[in-house]
């Protein structure tokens, strides 16, 4: 396999195509627009469906419709667009149809800006819409990992009949890196038994998220929750870097984790044993793996491009056993390795004085 230089957004698009995406519906928004543009060119070449919707609301509901037919359907957007898609995502979750969504996060709240951000963490992991549900959220740190995660996202979505969100940030979407793309998967021609295809020779398939009777909806929700628990048990993903002998731990995801990696190396050069824990699945959070590390370290630093979101998950796992310090940068400001090492030095000094 040749290594080629690819822009993050375009690599995500090509990876989705190679994973067999049948239909893409999207709406332009910086910093993900190149993904849409790439799809606009490539999907028709392959005889597949590309449609630029009238809005993100239109796009996600087109995804919903296409997904109801058992097609591999996806959309991509950035933070404000994901807010508009929340209605559709909730219906998709309630109806249990599979789809894939890419969120190339930018600064918020509001129109914010088009710089990289991680402030959609709550939005994506807690519940990407009203009602009780979680999407499976995967957060790549490199363009290669974005390709790799996109390659498995449709299989995961169909395996669990769930929403898979690939969550990057503006830096990942815009940067170019060498990647190895997977081979083109043959198109999936069979449709699942639940799909809407016309009743030809069978009883009707109905796809709905409406259950008026309390007992009915409660039963559906229990089933949904059982499914989410199965996902939570089976789909935790993470990476540990230099954690075997670590006394201090940095927890970071996506772009920030790459910067934290540099900080870990710099700290190790000064003799302080620091490791990096990088969640790849943001939901389900890789709690068991982090839990294992908490016992061996004296302090934890959480670094994010937001005002403190994932840190809540980390604190819930650490439960006060060791200090958890937070370094947050917002508005598109990307933390520098030095800022992370400064925080680590501070934690090391406090620990030393204790």
């Amino acid at each position: 396999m040749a290594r080629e230089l690819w822009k993050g957004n375009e690599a995500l698009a090509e990876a989705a195509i190679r994973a067999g995406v049948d239909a893409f519906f999207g709406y332009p928004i910086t910093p993900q627009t190149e993904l849409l543009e790439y799809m606009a060119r490539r999907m028709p070449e392959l005889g597949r469906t590309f449609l630029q919707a009238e809005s993100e609301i239109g796009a996600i509901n087109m995804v919903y419709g296409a997904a109801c037919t058992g097609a591999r359907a996806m959309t991509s957007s950035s933070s404000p667009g994901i807010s508009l898609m929340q209605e559709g995502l909730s219906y998709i979750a309630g109806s249990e149809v599979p789809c894939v969504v890419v969120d190339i996060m930018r600064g918020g709240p509001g129109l914010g800006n088009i710089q990289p951000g991680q402030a959609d963490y709550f939005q994506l992991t807690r519940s990407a819409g009203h009602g009780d549900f979680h999407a499976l959220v995967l957060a790549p740190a490199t363009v290669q990992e974005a390709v790799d995660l996109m390659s498995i996202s449709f299989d995961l979505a169909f395996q669990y009949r769930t929403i898979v969100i690939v969550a990057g940030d503006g830096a990942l979407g815009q940067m170019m890196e060498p990647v190895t793309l997977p081979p083109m998967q043959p198109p999936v021609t069979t449709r699942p038994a639940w799909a809407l295809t016309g009743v030809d020779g069978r009883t009707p398939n109905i796809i709905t998220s409406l259950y008026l009777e309390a007992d009915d909806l409660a039963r559906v929700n229990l089933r949904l929750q059982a499914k989410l628990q199965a996902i939570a048990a089976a789909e935790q993903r993470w990476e540990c870097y230099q954690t075997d002998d670590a006394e201090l731990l940095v927890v970071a995801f996506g772009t920030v984790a790459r910067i934290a990696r540099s900080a870990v190396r710099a700290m190790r050069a000064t003799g302080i044993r620091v490791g990096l824990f990088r969640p790849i699945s943001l939901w389900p959070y890789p709690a068991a793996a982090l839990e294992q590390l908490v016992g061996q370290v004296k302090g934890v630093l959480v670094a994010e491009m937001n005002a403190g979101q994932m840190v809540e998950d980390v604190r819930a796992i650490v439960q006060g056993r060791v200090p958890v310090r937070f370094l947050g940068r917002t508005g598109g400001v990307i933390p520098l390795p030095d800022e992370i090492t400064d925080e680590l030095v501070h934690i090391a000094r406090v620990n030393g004085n204790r």
Partner: protein
Amino acid sequence: MTTMVLERETSPAAWEIVYQRPAALTDLPTHYCPGCSHGAIHRMVAEVIDELGIRERTIGVAPVGCAVFAYKYFNLDSCEAAHGRAPAMATGIKRVLPDRIVFTYQGDGDLASIGGNEILHTALRGEHITVIFVNNAVYGMTGGQMAPTTLSGMKTTSSPTGRNPLTQGYPIHIPELLAPMPGVAYAVRRSMHAVAEVRKVKKAIRLAFQAQIQGLGFSIVEILGACPTNWHVAPSDALDYIRDRMIPEYPVGDFKVDERLGD
């Protein structure tokens, strides 16, 4: 002759069936109020689907509103859209299954208010779908609030002194709005207020599906329906209300009929 008649009366197998439930309808009783037009419109949609022989390849998209359970009443593959989003959902279905017949069934709050953007752009794109649009001038399911289709001066629970167009806007005319769009093959308005008109409704529904089958573009039938419950009138008076109040604002007629459309 007398003998033959007796045989017909005593041998059910030989009886001529003159009326029965269409195959495209389930045998569930509907939840609609007495005098509501939805039941009859459902039946006509189902009859047309049967007559065109397309039941096995038709996919329905139900709205939010009184017809929210349309998917239970149509004996078809169907799904339930978010409020107003049925045209977008139908777009997604039709784009990946272009050889299927896809229709939405929507009320006026759903289609003309919250779903205004979706219906506008679906028509602009000339999506090959059929829209059955029932206009009864109010939000029925939520208890009779003002809709974009509410008549000027009409009292509703959210326009208790009557809709004042100067502050609450004017009634919206959907087929007239969509008809000039090049992608629209069929855009008409019909009414449920009299038997002769009901027959025209069915003919229009048939032509709307025919337009899709022929691949001519987007098709929509607006049907003026009765809502005795929220109009606070008797069912028979509700039909007069359509004739005397609705039709002056919403004239029945053809606003776009593709010349290639053949019955």
